[in-house]
C-alpha cells in the first residue's frame, strides 16, 4: 500500500484559519449560539428546568390538549377529500347499497372517504373519537380544577378562558357532526333550525340569516365548514395558547404535602422528565384514539343514508356532550306565550339557549361568587382536598347531578324501552328530578365531606389501623393503631378552615353574612397541637401496655 506523502505542517499552502476553539463541550452549543444570536433563544426559552408537580389528575388537561392536536392532524387529512357542498349528485362510488341514489356532494364525499380512500375511514373514526375525548377530557379537567379550588386567585381569568374553550368545543363538535349531511346530522340541523327560530324577537331573522333562507337551503354546510375548520379552531388555538401561557406564568398548583408551601413548587424538571413524560403521554393518547378508530365503529353514516327531510329514526340523539341540552328540550313543558300578535316559544328557547347560557354563565362567575362569600382575597397555589371545602364540593356534585339528570332525560325514550317503563312517567319523573336530585346530591355530598374530615381527625389523633387485634389482660379486645408519619399528619392538618364573615352592615351585608355562615359552618375542627400530643401520650401508654401484656402473658396488672 502506498503511503500518503508527509506534509510539512509549516507549509504556507496548508495554512488554514481555524475558528476560535469552542469552550463548551456541548455539541448543541454551536447551532444554539447561531439561533441565539438571531432570536435570543436562551431568553426566549427561559427556564427549561421549570418545575412541574406530579399528580395523575394533572393529566386530564393534557389529554384535552393532545386530543386537540390529534383533531388538527386528522382534520387536515379529512379536508383533502371532503367536499362541503349541498349540490345534489348521484352516488357512483364503491358502496353498492347507495349507488344511483341522489345525495349531497358532502355525503357522497364522506362515503368516498369511508370506502374509497385508503385509511380514510380510520382517520374519520379517529377524528370523531378524538372529538369525544376532547370534550370528555375538558369536562373532567374542569371538574378537577373546580373540586380542588384551583380556579381561585390568581387563576380566575384562566378559569374563564377554560369555560370559553369548553363552550366553543361544544359548538365545534356540533358543527363537525353536521357536516357529512347524513340523516342523523340533518336531523340535528333541523333541530338547530327550530332552536334558533325560537329566540324571541329575532328568531326568524337568525334562522333565515344562518341558513340563507328556508331550511335546509344550500348554504348551511359550506358555512358550518368554515366555522368548523377555520373560525372556531382559530379561536380555540388562540385561547389554548393563552391558557398555556397563563399556566406557565402562574406555575402549576400543587397538592399540599410536606415541604410544599404557597411559595414553592415541588416536582420534576420540564427538561428532560416532563418532555419525556408529556411527549410520551401524547403518543399514548394518540395511540388510544387510533386504536378506538380501528376497533370501535363510530357514526356509520352509510347506515343512516343521505339526509331526507321527511325521515327520521327512532332513538335519534346528538353526540353525548349535547345530551344535556337534548334532555332539557325533551322535558320542558309546552310553554308558549302569545303577546300582541306574537309567539314566544319558551318550550324551546329556555331549555336550549337558556340552559347553555346558564351553565356557562354559572361556571364563569363561580370563582368570583365564592371569593365574595368567603371574603378570601389571598393567592392560592396549594390545592384544596375536596372534603375540606364541603360546600364547594357539594355545589359541584349538585351541578354534576343536574347535568346528569338532564343528560339522562336526553335518553328518556331509551330508558323507557330498556327498562319497560312508561315514557310519560320517565318524562314526568325527570321534570322533578332535575330540581330535586341536585339538592339531595348537595346534602349527601356535604355529609360525606364532613365525615371524611372527621376520619382525618381520627387518623391524626389515633393513627392508622393495623389490623392486629390485641386481647387485653382483662379480656377486652382492641385494635392496635400505628401512628401516621409526620408528613401525613402535616398533610391532613395544614388546610385553612375559613371562618364566617361577620355582618358589619357596610362591606358585609346580611345576605353576604348569611351565605358566608352557610359556607363555613359545620366544618370539623382540626385537632390542636395539644390534642395531638395528648393522643400521642395515650397511644404510647397503650402500646407499652399492649407490649407488656404480649410479652409477659400476665393478666394481673392494670393501669
Amino acid at each position, binding site marked *: 500500500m502506498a503511503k500518503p506523502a508527509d506534509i510539512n505542517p509549516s507549509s504556507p499552502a496548508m495554512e488554514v484559519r481555524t475558528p476560535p476553539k469552542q469552550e463548551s463541550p456541548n455539541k448543541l452549543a454551536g447551532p444554539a449560539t447561531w439561533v441565539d444570536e438571531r432570536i435570543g433563544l436562551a431568553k426566549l426559552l427561559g427556564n427549561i428546568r421549570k418545575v412541574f408537580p406530579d399528580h395523575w389528575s394533572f393529566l386530564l388537561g393534557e389529554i384535552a390538549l393532545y386530543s386537540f392536536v390529534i383533531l388538527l392532524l386528522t382534520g387536515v387529512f379529512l379536508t383533502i377529500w371532503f367536499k362541503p357542498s349541498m349540490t345534489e349528485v348521484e352516488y357512483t362510488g364503491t358502496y353498492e347499497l347507495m349507488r344511483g341514489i341522489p345525495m349531497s356532494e358532502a355525503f357522497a364525499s364522506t362515503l368516498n372517504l369511508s370506502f374509497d380512500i385508503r385509511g380514510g375511514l380510520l382517520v374519520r373514526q379517529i377524528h370523531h373519537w378524538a372529538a369525544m375525548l376532547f370534550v370528555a377530557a375538558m369536562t373532567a379537567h374542569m371538574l378537577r380544577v373546580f373540586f380542588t379550588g384551583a380556579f381561585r386567585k390568581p387563576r380566575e381569568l384562566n378559569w374563564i378562558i377554560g369555560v370559553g374553550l369548553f363552550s366553543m368545543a361544544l359548538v365545534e363538535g356540533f358543527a363537525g357532526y353536521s357536516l357529512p349531511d347524513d340523516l342523523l346530522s340533518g336531523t340535528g340541523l333541523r333541530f338547530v333550525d327550530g332552536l334558533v327560530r325560537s329566540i324571541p324577537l329575532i328568531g326568524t331573522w337568525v334562522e333565515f340569516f344562518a341558513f340563507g333562507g328556508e*331550511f335546509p337551503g344550500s348554504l348551511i354546510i359550506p358555512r358550518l365548514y368554515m366555522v368548523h375548520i377555520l373560525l372556531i379552531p382559530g379561536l380555540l388555538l388562540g385561547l389554548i395558547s393563552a391558557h398555556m401561557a397563563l399556566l406557565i406564568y402562574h406555575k402549576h398548583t400543587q397538592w399540599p404535602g410536606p415541604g410544599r408551601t*404557597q411559595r414553592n413548587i415541588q416536582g420534576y424538571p420540564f427538561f428532560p422528565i416532563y418532555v419525556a413524560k408529556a411527549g410520551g403521554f401524547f403518543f399514548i393518547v394518540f395511540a388510544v384514539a387510533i386504536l378506538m378508530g380501528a376497533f370501535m365503529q363510530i357514526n356509520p353514516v352509510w347506515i343512516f343514508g343521505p339526509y331526507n327531510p321527511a325521515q327520521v329514526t327512532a332513538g335519534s340523539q346528538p353526540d353525548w356532550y349535547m345530551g344535556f341540552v337534548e334532555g332539557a328540550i325533551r322535558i320542558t313543558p309546552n310553554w308558549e306565550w302569545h303577546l300582541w300578535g306574537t309567539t314566544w316559544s319558551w318550550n324551546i328557547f329556555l331549555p336550549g339557549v337558556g340552559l347553555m347560557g346558564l351553565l356557562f354563565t354559572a361556571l364563569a362567575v363561580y370563582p368570583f361568587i365564592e371569593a365574595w362569600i368567603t371574603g378570601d382575597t389571598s393567592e392560592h397555589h396549594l390545592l384544596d382536598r375536596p372534603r375540606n371545602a364541603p360546600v364547594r364540593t357539594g355545589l359541584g356534585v349538585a351541578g354534576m347531578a343536574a347535568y346528569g339528570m338532564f343528560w339522562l332525560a336526553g335518553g328518556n325514550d331509551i330508558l323507557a324501552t330498556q327498562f319497560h317503563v312508561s315514557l310519560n312517567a320517565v318524562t314526568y319523573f325527570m321534570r322533578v328530578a332535575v330540581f330535586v336530585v341536585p339538592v339531595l346530591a348537595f346534602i349527601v355530598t356535604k355529609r360525606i365531606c364532613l365525615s371524611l374530615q372527621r376520619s382525618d381527625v381520627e387518623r391524626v389523633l389515633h393513627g392508622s389501623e393495623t389490623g392486629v387485634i390485641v386481647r387485653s389482660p382483662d379480656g377486652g379486645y382492641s385494635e392496635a393503631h400505628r401512628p401516621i408519619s409526620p408528613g401525613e399528619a402535616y398533610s391532613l392538618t395544614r388546610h385553612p378552615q375559613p371562618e364566617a364573615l361577620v355582618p358589619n352592615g357596610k362591606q358585609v351585608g346580611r345576605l353576604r353574612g348569611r351565605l358566608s355562615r352557610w359556607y363555613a359552618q359545620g366544618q370539623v375542627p382540626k385537632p390542636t397541637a395539644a390534642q395531638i400530643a395528648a393522643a400521642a401520650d395515650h397511644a404510647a401508654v397503650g402500646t407499652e401496655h399492649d407490649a407488656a401484656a404480649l410479652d409477659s402473658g400476665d393478666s394481673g396488672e392494670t393501669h
Partner: protein
Amino acid sequence: MSTDIERTPSEHSDLAAPDSPVPDPGVEEHAPRFTDVDERAAERAYRQIVGMLAAVPILVIGFLVAYFAVPRDAELMLFGANLKMQNTLLGLTAGLAALLIGVAAIQWARVLMSDEEIVGERHGAASPPEARERVLADLETGIEATTIRRRKLLGSGMAGALGLMALPAVVSLADLGPWPTAAERAKTIETTLWAEGVHLVNDVTYRRLKADELEVGQLVNAEPENLQKLEGTAYQQAKAKAAIIIVRMDPNAIRIPESRKDWQVNGILCYSKICTHVGCPISLWEQQTHHLLCPCHQSTFDLGNSGLVVFGPAARALPQLPITTDADGYLVARSDFTVPVGPSFFERDSSKDFQEGDR
C-alpha cells in the same frame, strides 16, 4: 428572594400561611428506585425500552403492507363484529407503534432518568409595585404627549369614528339570507306545495293513492305529486314542509269537529308530518290510541282529535290538510294547510290554531 405574596395586602393573610398543629417536616427524603440501586435492574429496563422502540419499525412495515397489499373490500371477523380489514390493520399497526413510543418515553423518564424531586420558588402573580408605578408613569407621559387632555375632541372623535366603523362590518352581513319580511314569510315558511287539486302520492313510489285502497289503522307517508318536478335545494326545502301522513281511522271512534267535517274522506285524515316543536318528521304511529309520537322529543299528537297535543314539549296541534277525492277516487288536497307547518315563529300568533274545544 422575597415573594410578592407576602406583600400582597390581604384581609385573610392567615389563609395563605400554613396553619397546622403539626410542624412541616419538610420535603420527604428521596427513596431510590430499583434501577438506582441495582445495576442489573437498570440494564433490564434499558433493554425493555430499546426493545419497545425496536418494535416500532416492524409495525410501520406492517402498516405499509396493510396499506398496499390488503384489498380494500376485505373483511375481518373479530369478536363477532364485521370489521373492514384494511381499516383495522392500519389502525392496529399505527396505534401500537404510537403506543410503544409513548410507553417507551414514559418508562425511560420513570425508571432511568433522575427522579430527584426539585423545588422551585414561586412568585405572586402581581408585578412589583415599582414596575406598576413605572407603567402608570409611562402611561401618564404618553397621554400627556398626545395632548388629548387639552384637545378633548381627539379622543371622543377617534372613539366615535372607530365605533362607527363597526357599522359597515355589521351591515355587510345583511345579505346573509333573505329578510323574513311578511311577504318573504308568506312565500317561504308559511306556504307549502299543497294546493287545491294536488294529488297525494306515496313518498317513495310517487304513486297516487286511492281512498278505498287504505285500510282502517293504516298509515301512509305521502308527498304532494308536484314535488317530483323539483330537484336539489328547492326539492329539499319543499319536502321539508310538504311531507304528510295519511291515516285511516274508524270514523265512529274519532272526533271530527264541525268545521273539519269535509276535510276527510270516510275517516281518512291527513296531517303534516312536521312536528310543531322543532320540526322533526313524526312517524311513530300508535294504531289503537290514534296517537302519533315524535321520535326526537316525544311530543304526542292525537290524530283522532284534530292532531291536538296530548303529551310532550310541542305547543301547537299538528296542522291538518283538508282532503277529498277526485272523480276517479284518488285522494287530492282541497287547499294548502290552513296554518303554517313546523315550529312556531315569533311573528305569527299561533294562539288561533286549532285547540281543544274548537268546533
